[in-house]
């Protein structure tokens, strides 16, 4: 019987982290930005059916980059967690902070247990407040750490570059159209600095809109409303919320 090689814990962890990061980097990046009336999720996604963003609970949204089956699993776990908690206590007792903690513990345990392969995912959990000051955005990398973010956040392959691009240009109180355009601009920049066009059909956009009258604030922006927002002049953008476009989530 051969003797197993000794691998130092530092080395083992570094290898696992690199494995996870490489997996995440293969996927496309996505960004989450605060705007005046809420939080907008923007990503490039050729699929209409397999979503990167989704609703977890009334005010809480979920975004993920990386391996689809792994983050889908976490997403459903989160929906179950939130629904069970809301059913047992009250709808107000479901918070993004609580959910982010559970995700962090879950990812952390998986990352550091030798028997499991680390998840190749990076998550964002966001909760829209009644006021912009109440918005919360948490970024959860593959290893189970939590980063409390403000303004804008990018995850996925090219995240660092996109983040620094956004940090320089994002400001508080942007309109939805402004924030959306900034997000698309950030996503269209390749690693070498060249820009490419992302057509509207390849964009997945969703918002947590605090002005929605419904209890559930998550809404996908598709079709005409999306193209109108992308085309809108910055001056005339705030009036885009035509009630006839209010469509319930599919």
């Amino acid at each position, binding site marked *: 019987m051969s003797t197993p090689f000794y691998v130092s814990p530092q080395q083992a962890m570094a290898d696992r982290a690199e494995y996870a990061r490489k997996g995440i980097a293969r996927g496309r990046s996505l960004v989450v930005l605060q705007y005046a009336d809420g939080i907008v999720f923007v990503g490039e996604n050729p699929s209409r*059916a397999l*979503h990167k963003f*989704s*609703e*977890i609970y009334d005010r809480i949204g979920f975004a993920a980059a990386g391996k689809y089956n792994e983050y889908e*699993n*976490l997403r*459903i*776990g*989160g*929906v*179950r*967690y939130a*629904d*069970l*908690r*809301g*059913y*047992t206590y009250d709808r107000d007792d479901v918070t993004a902070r609580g959910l982010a*903690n*559970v*995700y962090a*513990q*879950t990812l*952390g*345990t998986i990352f550091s247990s030798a028997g499991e392969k680390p998840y190749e995912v990076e998550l964002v959990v966001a909760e829209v407040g009644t006021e912009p000051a109440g918005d919360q955005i948490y970024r959860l990398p593959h290893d189970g750490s939590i980063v409390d973010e403000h303004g804008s956040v990018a995850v996925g392959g090219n995240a660092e570059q996109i983040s620094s691009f956004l940090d320089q240009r994002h400001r508080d109180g942007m309109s939805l159209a402004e924030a959306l355009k900034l997000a698309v601009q950030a996503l269209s920049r390749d690693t070498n600095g060249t820009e490419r066009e992302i057509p509207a059909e390849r964009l997945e956009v969703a918002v947590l809109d605090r002005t929605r009258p*419904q209890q*559930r604030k998550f809404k996908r922006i598709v079709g005409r409303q999306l193209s109108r927002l992308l085309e809108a002049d910055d001056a005339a953008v705030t009036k885009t919320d035509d009630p006839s476009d209010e469509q*319930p*989530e*599919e």
Partner: protein
Amino acid sequence: MEPNTRSTGRLPAAFLTPGSSSFIDFLADHSPELLPGNRKLPEGIVEAPHGTTIVAATFPGGVVLAGDRRATMGNMIAQRDIEKVFPADEYSAVGIAGTAGLAVEMVKLFQLELEHFEKVEGATLSLEGKANRLSTMIRSNLGMAMQGLAVVPLFAGWDEGREKGRIFSYDVTGGRSEEHGYAATGSGSIFARGSMKKLYREDLTEQQATTLVVQALYDAADDDSATGGPDLARRIFPIVTVITDEGFRRLSEAESSELARSVTERRLEQPDGPRAALL
């Protein structure tokens, strides 16, 4: 509840196990004690507040669901302003008669079931699917119904496939039947149904349909002591909801008070309400 979540902070395995899109199925696996149907039943009959009359009527373009506000316990009024009509989701609503506590819990679970399915699957259930799901939930309550804790809902919604409003009524065993035109459930339902039978037409406008259900509730309250009429002194008016292709809408207090007042005012002149032609 959630013992694992608390001890390790990590999502328990059950949360991450692929399974059905039903919240009730998930509860049955993970925390069966939280399901109303799984509770141990003590011997004997329990006295609890009962909700009374729910009425519904369709009109071209939608459906109206309304309920009075009274809950009774025996011959006593337990609550004057109970709410018995709830949105189930964006395009459907449920009104409940029967044991109030259980019924409200059932509605909460039903709402959650529809919402959970929608979030997990990314698509809503069909109206037929929603109606069937409610049927299963009532069936699981049969044990309690046998002890007098029955819940009998009325379910109404906008069917996007067929583009019309539809009404489903239930019996305590979960038996489901689709009602055409109008329906009522609860202790005052016999009187409400008689009233609507005479007043209902297929070409009602939304405004007329809401008036129709308030007339029916007035007639139910007139003859059934367990049904409450509009309480003008305390400003407690029936809850009237409308579901169209634009979704669920509950009439504001101003709208329902206006409706209830005009019906009541006409009854001051004609206590038995509008009359149908003899032939």
